Every structure is written in C-alpha cells, then in structure tokens.
C-alpha cells in the first residue's frame, strides 16, 4: 500500500512544485550571493555566525538551511502533512479509501509514512541542492566561521571540507527533527477537517505562534518559550563554533517527541473513531 501511495503522491503537482521551489531557492541563493559579491561577509542566523561564501561553496548549504528552517521548510512540511488525509476528504476519495477491507489504522499509517518521507526529502533537498550549487560556484574548500556570539571573543573556527559536510549533515538532521512537531500538528488537523488549507495553515500557524512567543525577542514570554516547538531549531548552528555548545538540544529533541506522541496519538485516536460523512 505504501508503494502505491508513494507512487501517486510523488507525481502530484504540489509535490513537484514544492521540491522544485526548494531546489530553485538553492540556485537563487547562490546566484544572489555571487551577484552581490562573494567576498562579502554574511551574517547567518541568530547565533550569529559570520561566513564568507567566496572562500568555500560549503557556506551555501549553511546559509540555505538557516534561511529555510523558520518558514519555507515548515510550510513544505505542513503542506505534506496537512494535505494527506484532508486532501482526500476534499476530493471525496477518502470514503472510497475507507470503504475497503483495509483497517483505518493501516490507512492512516500509510498516509503518515508517505507524508513523513516526502517531508524528509524536502528537508534534505535544501542542503543537498545548495551544497552542489555552492561547490560548483565557489569551490570545495575549508569553511571559516567567525563566531559573533558572546562566548567566543573574535574567534575564527576553521573546518575541513569533510568536517563541514558532516556538520551540515548534523544540522540537517537537527532541522528535520525540528519539523516533527509541525508535521504532527498538521497531520492531526488533517484528520479533523475536509479542508486541506485549514490543516496546512494550522501547521504554519503553529510555527508563527512559536516564533512570536520567543524569549530571544520578547523576554516577557520566557515562561512559555521552553514549550514552543520551533524556537530552538537553530541550535545546530553551534556546530560551527569551537567549542560547540550543546545546551538545549536534548530538551528540543524531547519537546519534539512530546509533540509527535501527543498529536499523532490524537490523530490515531480520532481517525479510528470518526464518522466519514463527506
């Protein structure tokens, strides 16, 4: 069932457009950096890191991941998760999918697996595409990061290309982990509504709420900041500091797990009981 589901989901226009847009972003970013002047120092993220793209193409995936993790990737993940069941309900094909000798649990598991796989591909596409385009444009050289944080004063960390790729891999995995809460919430909404837009908007909305209730910008919300699903998605950038602090990463992973268990569990509970009237 997963193979059949993946085969048609892969060919959907929204899948191709989403993947195309993310890959195009990598190209546009590289062209933009080259046009601006590749020797310009780029301030990346809230950590922040200062990187010079012209010295290594490996800077591009770091910038691309940092630029997409707060909106583009949550949007892509919310599209895949929010549409997977609600989209079928909107077309009227959900009732035919369920009027078959296939348990609802199996049906939902198939939808979950395929939406998760497409979301993972979306997250991987950003660093992979930008790595290829960045290296083609600026070369395969060691990456030099100037740490703008208070922990290091004027330090410059140099990473070999292999180490840089490994740390980009870690960053990608961390960002993928950070998308789990948004995925789970949009997936749950997808089982509630027959309007896919509502589920997608809900997933994006959670990201926005999380960003608004961020103690980095609004110290007064510190009490809830620790429970917001998306605020610490940028901690992977510490991997480009020396030494690389890991504070908050375990908390972030546990928080993602709590969101996933809660909302996928609710989706499971509800979908197995719901009346399919439309």
């Amino acid at each position, binding site marked *: 069932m997963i193979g059949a589901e993946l085969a048609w989901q892969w060919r959907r226009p929204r899948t191709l457009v989403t993947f195309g847009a993310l890959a195009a972003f990598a190209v546009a970013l590289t062209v933009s950096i080259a046009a601006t002047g590749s020797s310009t120092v780029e301030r990346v993220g809230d950590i922040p890191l200062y990187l010079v793209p012209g010295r290594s193409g490996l800077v591009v995936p770091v910038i691309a991941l940092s630029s997409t993790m707060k909106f583009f990737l949550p949007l892509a993940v919310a599209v895949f998760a929010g549409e997977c069941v609600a989209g079928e309900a909107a077309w009227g094909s959900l009732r*035919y999918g369920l009027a078959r*000798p296939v348990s609802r649990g199996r049906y939902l598991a*198939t939808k979950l697996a395929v939406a998760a796989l497409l979301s993972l591909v979306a997250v991987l596409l950003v660093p992979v595409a930008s790595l290829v385009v960045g290296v083609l444009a600026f070369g395969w050289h060691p990456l030099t990061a100037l740490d703008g944080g208070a922990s290091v004063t004027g330090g410059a960390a140099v990473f070999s290309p292999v180490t840089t790729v490994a740390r980009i891999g870690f960053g990608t995995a961390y960002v993928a982990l950070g998308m789990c809460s948004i995925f789970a919430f949009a997936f749950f909404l997808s089982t509630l509504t027959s309007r896919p837009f509502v589920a997608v908007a809900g997933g994006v909305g959670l990201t926005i709420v999380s960003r608004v209730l961020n103690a980095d910008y609004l110290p007064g919300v510190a009490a809830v900041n620790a429970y917001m699903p998306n605020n610490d998605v940028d901690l992977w950038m510490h991997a480009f500091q020396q030494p690389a602090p890991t504070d908050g990463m375990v908390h972030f992973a546990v928080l993602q797990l709590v969101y996933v268990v809660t909302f996928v569990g609710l989706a499971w509970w509800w979908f197995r009981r719901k009346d399919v009237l439309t």
Partner: protein
Amino acid sequence: MAPEPAVEICGLTKRLGRQVVAVDGLDLRVDTGQVMGLAGPNGAGKSVTLKILLGLVRPSAGTVRLFGEPVRPGASVLGRVGALVDGPGFVPHLSGRDNLRLAARTAGRPVDDADLEHAVAETGLGTAIDRHYRTYSHGMRYRLGLAQAMLGHPELLVLDEPTTGLDPAHILEIRRMIAGVAERGTTVLFSSHSMAEVEQVCTHVAVVRHGRCIASGPLSQVVGPAADLEAAYLDLVGGDRPVS
C-alpha cells in the same frame, strides 16, 4: 440451509450530535440477487444507512451484517462490496485508468484481480479512461465512479443516488448498466429520492422516512393497488410529497 442475506440490518440507529436522529431503528433485509431500492425523500436517512453499511459511519445502536458477517471499518467482507456513495471521488490529476489502478492497489488487491478492463467496458468509458480525471464531464465522472464500484466483480453493489445531476441519456445508460449487472447475479442496493426511478430499476423496494423503514418487499407488493410507487408512498405517509 438458506444462504445468508446479502444485507441484514436490525434496529439501526444513528444520532448525529444531540439533536438529529438520522436513522431511527431501521430494519432491512436484502437477499442475494435482489435489486433493492431504498426510496425516500431527501433527509430520510438513506445515505447515512449506506455509509454505515460500508463501515464509514459508526451506528449508535443496532446491527449490520453483510453476507452474515458484522460490518466494522475495514472488515474483510467489504472486499465483496462495490460502492458509489455521495458521488464519485477521485484524484484530479491522475487519469481515469490510474485512478482505478490506485483504487485496486489501495484495496490491497492485485490490479489483475480487479479486472479493470471489464469495469471500463461495462461503463462505456472508452478512450476517455486515459484522460485526466479533471477533464471529465459530470456524466463521465459518474461512469468512472461506477467502474470503481465494479472493480473485482463485487457480489453486492451499493449505489447512493447514482444518477444525481445527470442528463436523461446518461441516466438511461446507468439504469441499463445496473440492469446488466443485476442480470449477472450481483445484488444491488440502490438509493434514490425519485420513486419513479426506483420503480424502473428495482425488483424490491424499502420505503424510508424519518430514518425508519415504513414498507418493504417486492415492488408489486409495496405498490399494491396504487397507480405507482409514488402514489403508494403518498398513501403510506398521508400526503407528504416526496421530491422527484
């Protein structure tokens, strides 16, 4: 030993929220080989009953059995049933053929077992089967819906208002299609708010009103001395006209 009825519904009740009782203690039996019409006005509870029959809606009370097996979501007996309820529902950017293949695969059966070509031939889709579903006319969409219902030669065909919104030529073709399927021994449960349509298509009829079955049996028995089924219905309900 007599064969199990294709459909056996006892005391079926469905409440939607606290206020609405969509189905209210409905009893119905459909024996194999019958073409049973579920007739009644809009809002009588026909569609909800059919959705309970397909495991889409959970009953508040009562029992539903298909070929002697209790119905629940995903029950294996649903593999013996084909359905068209609330109109067709397909993936717009896939062709009709790919939609049917997908339907067969997601039902957990090999495409070859579904006998897709037979279903396509039965419904007269012709070369349109390879066009994108979104390019289909209303009538073509219903034909594809019927083709999906016929995949795998189901023993029971559940059709909920299968001619809604169709022009007379399409209605006639769909009626012929149903007659052809029934001649080959498939049991058909057909709902319609049009008494005239039920009278033309069905061998048996169950009249449903306010979620209850108020009369059922062979068509001639339910019509009785009345001029037609609509007149018989009006006699049964005392002048409350159905929508036709």
